[in-house]
């Protein structure tokens, strides 16, 4: 068992849990007003990036695979950007 547990993985796991705790704490006890939505999403995005980079191994992936992952985010940004553009300017 010992040979498959790498310190790096444990650190990544700790960071993921830490960001989760931070997000829960700010939602429960901090009143950040308008920026709270941004903070919440930013912390989640941080978790997602850590997950992608280490556990989903984008760190060692080919350029092509990284592009596929980036393309997903790009197209989601198009959906959210141009879509919300409607409701935010009505």
């Amino acid at each position, binding site marked *: *068992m010992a*040979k*498959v*547990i*790498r310190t790096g*993985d*444990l650190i*990544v*796991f700790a960071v*993921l*849990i830490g960001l*989760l705790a931070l*997000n*829960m704490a700010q*939602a*429960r006890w901090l009143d950040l007003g308008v920026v*709270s*939505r941004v903070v*919440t*999403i930013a*912390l*989640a995005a941080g*978790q*997602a990036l850590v*997950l*992608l980079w*280490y*556990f*989903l191994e984008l760190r060692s*992936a*080919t350029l*092509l*695979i990284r592009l*596929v*992952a980036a*393309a*997903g985010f790009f*197209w*989601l940004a198009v*959906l*959210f950007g141009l*879509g*919300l553009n409607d*409701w*935010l300017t009505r």
Partner: protein
Amino acid sequence: MAETQLVLHEPFRDRAQQREADALGMWVFLGTEAMMFGGLFFALIVIRVIHPQGAQEATDKLDMWLGGLNSALLLTSSLTTTLAVTAARKGARSITTGCLLASAALGMAFLCVKGYEYYVDYGKGLMPGVGKPFPIETTGAELFINGYFVSTGLHAIHLFIGVCLVVGLAGAVWLRRVPVPGRSIVVEMAGRYWHFVDMIWIFLYPVLYLMDRGG
């Protein structure tokens, strides 16, 4: 040993090509899943934008601690999945099986907590169509809760598929149907899917439970 050799399928010229194609195929598939959940997230965010008050009151009805517990369970399952992949690459058959089963168990634990949560929601009258009348009058609150059920439901279906997949894979690794390290790529691909389902929850949790939470 013949059984550790990768089976080369028809269109491929060599093993490296097949590996790369499998990896790319998996990532493109995850991209399609991301777009599907993306549409759902978009709907949830729009509801929050047009009904901030109703959505906030609805958020306060959800139990952020149960959701948080579930987040921790899934993140832990991602760790065990990573360990399974490492073990598979090193050819440690029993450790791979064990770690995969641990992931599946954590996934099942998530689903149990989720089921309990639904039961509590039912008691509060939040569930659409059944039980007590909806407790909040403010426009948008019921809508938001319905969005919560659709998105967590779809996520739970994905997780359940993942659990079945991982249990099956654990058996196959144990029985040497999927020999490691020869075909560790299968474990790797299953791991990709698992992490992805975790990542969906990483976004669902704050969007549903944390954003705009009042006192």
